[in-house]
């Protein structure tokens, strides 16, 4: 038996990839305490990080530059923030935008004046600029115009902004891209991957977002003081906590999951191992039960405060609210005092909707930090594995049959199964999705049609002799090299494959986006179509001013309702 069907030593059976890696379930993902933002907050707290605003050169209109610095794991980093005038008609969250309200770089070390001048000339250009390995992350953001103006006006009038308005939007700015890993000349991931505090995936990016949030708080206070120096109020810490950072995310995020199967596997494997550890617990301690109840209350408040215009998602949220009430009722009967309480609860909850099931995963993990937080260290990978050239075609065939049975069943003769095609536009290399029968460009289709590729490989493999080796097969069929590599890798990284047809009519890219964003730690998914969404990061998270003293874990599925309670 493998670890997916049985494992001893404190691990219950893990959920199978065929259950977990379906778009429908991925599209119901929730952040957990292993999400990257949560991991970062714990690390910053443990390191007692102190954030210093080292430079603030800002006009009365709020245009200028600022620098925030901190030391993490023995390295000093600086957020360089540049605030610009942006005519309203040029404000768009699309990747194809060329101007933004603010642009940012996370800098390695403390920038000199020359560095700042160089960054000042390049960072506002974003993709059109050129960068060096001293820059670790590049980002930009646009104001949430109505809320931003309201907050400035309220503070300038000497009082706090309307709490309901803060809650309704949840952020002062939303980022429209957060670039790392060598983009446009910035540092490769490999250059920082061994640094304490940045070992885990996307930590530098999350650090950047968290610092941007502090900048947005400072900017509204600055503008209020500029408007009314004698009367302006400071934004209260309570209200700052309400204000996270928004993010608008489109299709650009989706191909990453397909092109990084080993990394995707590492993330999901960590979460599923955490769940298996908890499910294996023979008893729940009073503290664990209390922690669970508090987390469930918080999740329910979160669901109650989560409202979106998208009708499909809103129906799911309403179902989630009802299901969480049902789950709460289940746990109110003393069932958590019995043997294997978490296993029993998760089993009982399998009757509820996918949103509730995945939300429950997050809630169940919450009171078990001591048992599972170490798994965060596994949420990274090195180089992808090289193909195994010594494997026989018989063994390769067996791998396909075992790991891709779902793919072999798809009838690609049916137009619905090839309805869509992924491509990269010449517009800023933006990934897009087209309708095959209606749009040009299918001949340049991006290779995200994994199921179809595997079927083609299956046919080729069965044209050869079973005892033939992959090395010889690939000499005859170099066009199969990438998919052979993938199939072999997935045998060892089974959570790395999305088990749905990504070019079929039924594929909703929004499911991919939510899955990835949940691993980042995003909440308040607000789909604007089936291809892009707004989300909120850092809402409820500790502030730069209290990270050393605040509980870094008390903001799971944060909601203003539970905060008020």
């Amino acid at each position, binding site marked *: 038996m493998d670890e997916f069907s049985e494992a001893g030593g404190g691990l219950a059976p893990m959920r199978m990839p065929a259950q977990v890696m379906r778009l429908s379930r991925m599209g119901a993902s929730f952040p957990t305490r292993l999400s990257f933002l949560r991991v970062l907050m714990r690390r910053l707290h443990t390191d007692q990080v102190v954030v210093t605003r080292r430079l603030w050169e800002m006009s009365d209109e709020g245009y200028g530059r600022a620098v925030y610095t901190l030391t993490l794991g023995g390295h000093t980093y600086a957020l360089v923030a540049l605030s610009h005038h942006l005519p309203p008609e040029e404000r768009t969250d699309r990747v194809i935008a060329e101007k933004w309200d603010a642009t940012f770089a996370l800098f390695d070390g403390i920038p000199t004046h020359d560095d700042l001048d160089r960054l000042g000339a390049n960072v506002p250009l974003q993709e059109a600029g050129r960068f060096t390995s001293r820059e670790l992350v590049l980002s930009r953001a646009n104001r949430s115009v109505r809320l931003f103006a309201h907050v400035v006006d309220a503070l300038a009038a000497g009082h706090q902004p309307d709490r309901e308005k803060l809650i309704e939007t949840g952020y002062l700015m939303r980022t429209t891209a957060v670039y790392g890993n060598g983009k446009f*000349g910035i540092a490769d991931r490999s250059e920082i991957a061994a640094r304490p505090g940045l070992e885990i995936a996307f930590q530098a990016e999350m650090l950047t977002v968290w610092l941007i949030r502090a900048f947005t708080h400072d900017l509204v206070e600055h503008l209020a003081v500029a408007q009314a120096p004698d009367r302006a109020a400071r934004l209260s810490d309570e209200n700052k906590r309400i204000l996270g950072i928004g993010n608008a995310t489109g299709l650009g995020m989706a191909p990453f999951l397909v092109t990084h199967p080993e990394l995707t596997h590492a993330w999901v494997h960590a979460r599923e191992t955490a769940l298996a550890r908890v499910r294996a617990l023979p008893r729940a301690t009073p503290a664990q039960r209390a922690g669970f109840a508090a987390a469930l209350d918080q999740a329910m408040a979160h669901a109650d405060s989560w409202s979106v215009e998208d009708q499909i998602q809103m129906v799911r949220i309403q179902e989630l609210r009802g299901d969480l009430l049902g789950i709460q009722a289940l746990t109110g009967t003393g069932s958590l005092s019995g043997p294997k309480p978490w296993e029993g609860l998760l089993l009982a909850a399998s009757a509820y909707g996918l949103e509730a099931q995945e939300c429950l995963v997050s809630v169940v993990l919450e009171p078990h930090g001591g048992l599972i937080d170490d798994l965060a260290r596994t949420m990274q990978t090195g180089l992808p594995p090289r193909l195994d050239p010594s494997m026989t075609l018989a063994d390769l065939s067996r791998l396909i049959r075992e790991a891709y049975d779902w793919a072999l069943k798809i009838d690609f003769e049916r137009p619905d199964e090839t309805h869509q095609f992924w491509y990269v*536009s010449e517009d800023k290399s933006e990934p897009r999705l087209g309708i095959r029968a209606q749009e040009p460009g299918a001949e340049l289709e991006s290779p995200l049609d994994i199921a179809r590729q595997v079927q083609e490989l299956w046919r080729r493999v069965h044209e050869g002799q079973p005892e033939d080796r992959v090395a010889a097969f690939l000499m005859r069929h*170099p066009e199969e090299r990438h998919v052979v590599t993938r199939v072999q890798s997935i045998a060892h990284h089974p959570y790395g494959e999305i088990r749905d047809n990504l070019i079929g009519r039924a594929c909703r890219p929004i499911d991919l986006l939510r899955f990835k964003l949940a691993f980042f730690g995003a909440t308040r998914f607000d789909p604007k179509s089936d291809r892009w969404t707004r989300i909120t990061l850092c809402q409820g998270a500790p502030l730069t001013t209290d990270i050393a003293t605040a509980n870094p874990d008390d903001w799971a599925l944060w909601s203003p309702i539970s905060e008020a309670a």
Partner: protein
Amino acid sequence: MTAPSLNEIAKRMSDAARGAGWPLGLAQDLGQAAAWLSSQGGDGVGVAMAALGAKPDPVEARQDTPGDWQIGLAPAGVAGPAALDLVLAGEGPVSLALTDAPDLVLALAGYASAQTGQTLVLSGALTATVTSGALEGAPHRAPEDKILRLSLGAPGVIKPAVQPRRAPDDATWAQAGALAAKTLVPATAQSRAFGAGAGAVDGDD
């Protein structure tokens, strides 16, 4: 220009290979090989671009004596991965007769060594040893030798030396960009409006 990152080199050269009509797997190998060679202070971009002049047709390997494989005449971009497959499968050393420069085989071997932790030894037309992805000393070229031999060496661990970034030749980098652009779909009003799903109302609040 400022020097590109290794990730940019891998991406651009892989896309350039695809733009030149190479199969995805070989293109990805070539991109990673270019980045690896650049990480060792070599001209990864130039070497990869030079290789893209060849057609990536299938190759054959033959054994005149057991355990002594021969490939070629064939281009390095196709013969290199095939030879590495044979060597890493434990099939024995491979002799390659190449239609182009052997440097790409070194680059491919370097990345394969980094992936597998194996030691790979090149001799003949180019002499070099790569251990766990680290190049031991400077490669030596012998243009008069028309055969490049590839074999497994003794395992070892060497910490790769970090080389400063090196900017590729501007014209070569631009040529690679032009090839890579062949994988991009021209923008249309429809794709701009609907392809990314945002429509026109994405920044209004």
